[in-house]
């Protein structure tokens, strides 16, 4: 099974009510898209764990700027 960035974006939009559907793009910078804080980081980590069974750590998030950066990490660890 493969995963797509479109699907990842859809899942983020489902999780965060404040995001307007269609606005988030692969090159969108996370911190600019919405009020980024530690709780949002936990929500994202929980979603990625539940949906992809992939663990993101604090370093992954500090080193990621765009949606695609995070997606690339998920894809490299995704086991299907």
């Amino acid at each position, binding site marked *: 099974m493969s995963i797509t960035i479109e699907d990842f974006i859809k899942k983020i939009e489902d999780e965060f009510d404040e995001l307007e559907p269609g606005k988030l793009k692969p090159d969108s910078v996370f911190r600019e898209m919405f*009020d980024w*804080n*530690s*709780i949002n*980081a*936990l*929500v994202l*980590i*929980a979603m990625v*764990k*539940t949906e992809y069974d992939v*663990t993101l*750590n*604090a370093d992954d*998030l500090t080193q990621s700027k765009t949606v695609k950066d995070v997606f690339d990490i998920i894809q490299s660890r995704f086991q299907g």
Partner: protein
Amino acid sequence: MAIFTTAGIKVSGLAACVPSKEVSNYDYKWVSAKEREQLVKTIGVEKRRHVEKGTTTSDMCQAAAEAILHGLSVDRSQINLLIFISQTRDYFIPQTSGIVQDKLGLPKSCISFDVSLGCSGYVYGLSLAAGLMNAFGISKALLLVGDISSLNSAYRDKSTYPLFGDAGTATLLEREPEAPPMHFNLEGDGSGYQAIIIPDGGMRNILTKKSFNYKKIAPGIYRTPLHVALNGIEVFNFSLREVVPNIRQLLKYTGEELNNFDYVVFHQANKLINETLRKMLKLPPEKVPLSIGKFGNTSSASIPLTLVSELHNPLKNRPLKLLLSAFGIGLSWGATSLILQQPYCPDIIEI
């Protein structure tokens, strides 16, 4: 591997005590109104209880124990084991268990000692009490478990202050040959000891004037080294990594199916962690009671408090097959599979 079974020990009483003072996270002025909403929604803590200064964990545990001893007219001379599990004791020295032993009028023959465990304390405590009762031939034991986390968290630390509440609990255990077995899977990993820590004031970093200095850790997070520091992401990932395999391993050992349990009661860490664990185990919400909205994360007290608060009626009416899963500070975690056979369970006591 610490997977084992204890037999012939019955939980005959269960009580919880909380402070009467209620604190709402909607009033938490340190963060914006929007952030308050987000806290309540995501962390799941709307209200919690805070002790007045001078009230201790042991006061709450004592009140809970008194309710059981009175309610069941227990002959106190028969209680020969008291275990007090807490990370918020009355004094640095001596141990708190002795003080409670005296206040409860328990005999000098009662073995009493403290155990320093937090979130995992109740599951560890049940195994300790049951194991010692069988090993030493003790007929009745009191397990007192609780914490006051409100005094350790800094108001200006949004990563800890809105999360924690205070509570103390008591569990009466009795030897009864017919009682169903309790199964345990206990684990730990001390390499993660810094994930939840009060750095100063112990023997490693003794108290100095600098211990009282506030530092900015991150936006919205100011605290001293005498306050609890919580690495949210680390605790989160630890919980998601260890809890489900720990439960699966226990069920493999007992040959039980998760579907056959009436309820699965988790340590009330925060709603996001608890809901993620529930989804990972594919459990329906009605089988996984939450008390975190009313009482916050009460550390070691959270499982018995949730039993008394959320399962009061079912507990009274019929035997319940339960899976209890506790995880956190240490790092330390474990699960137990047990059947509670209508223990005496008074309403939550306020102090």
